């Protein structure tokens, strides 16, 4: 990785972490609230169906995670497995796309 690319990745990891920190607080509160009397699909969907606020929140959450997770895994792959270079970068980008697609699909699933 060039120094410039390394700085970009570092910033992306910290910026996504800051977004995720806010999202995780809201997520943990929601989990505690939603599971207090058992979780049912009807209850869950009643909260999310057609709710644009939740749609935007979870879309931001998913996209921040899709940025954050591959960078973290790439660091682990580099330090613990010695997997670096172009193939690691491509794998990280593919993982980001896959997470974003799978996550946004789920978000749409509980919204639509």
């Amino acid at each position, binding site marked *: 990785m060039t120094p410039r690319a390394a700085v970009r990745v570092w910033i992306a990891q910290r910026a996504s972490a800051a977004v*995720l920190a806010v999202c995780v607080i809201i997520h*943990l509160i929601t989990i505690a609230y939603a599971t207090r009397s058992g979780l049912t699909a009807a209850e869950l969907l009643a909260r999310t169906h057609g709710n644009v606020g939740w749609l935007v929140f979870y879309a931001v959450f998913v996209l921040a995670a899709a940025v954050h997770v591959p960078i973290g895994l790439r660091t682990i792959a580099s330090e613990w497995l010695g997997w670096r270079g172009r193939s690691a970068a491509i794998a990280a980008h593919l993982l980001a796309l896959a*997470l974003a697609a799978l996550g946004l699909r789920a978000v749409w699933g509980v919204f639509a």
Partner: protein
Amino acid sequence: MSGDLRARNHSAWWAFLLHRLSGLALALFLPLHFWALGQALQGEAALDRLLAWTAQPLVKTAEWGLVVLLAAHFALGLRVLALEFLPWRNWHRTLLAAAAGVTIAVGLALALAL
């Protein structure tokens, strides 16, 4: 003094390891989580079948573990951001204690809710 420094380095290493391992576990869980919620696309009944499966004690315990790992990764991540972005650095122990406190508090709160 040197003993104090060694102990501090030691706890920082544990914080690093827990942050990394919790992140790894969450990364492995995330695709499953997305897939599960995506079941809503198949209709409410499909999602309910999955939620009924997650009501089993063992699965519930695993979920509780994941929530605690999320709290730990969150708190330890805030510690990293504080160490990197805030000027005064003579507070490693305080941040570690705060991270542990947040994790335990979330774990207990969720244990009551689940």
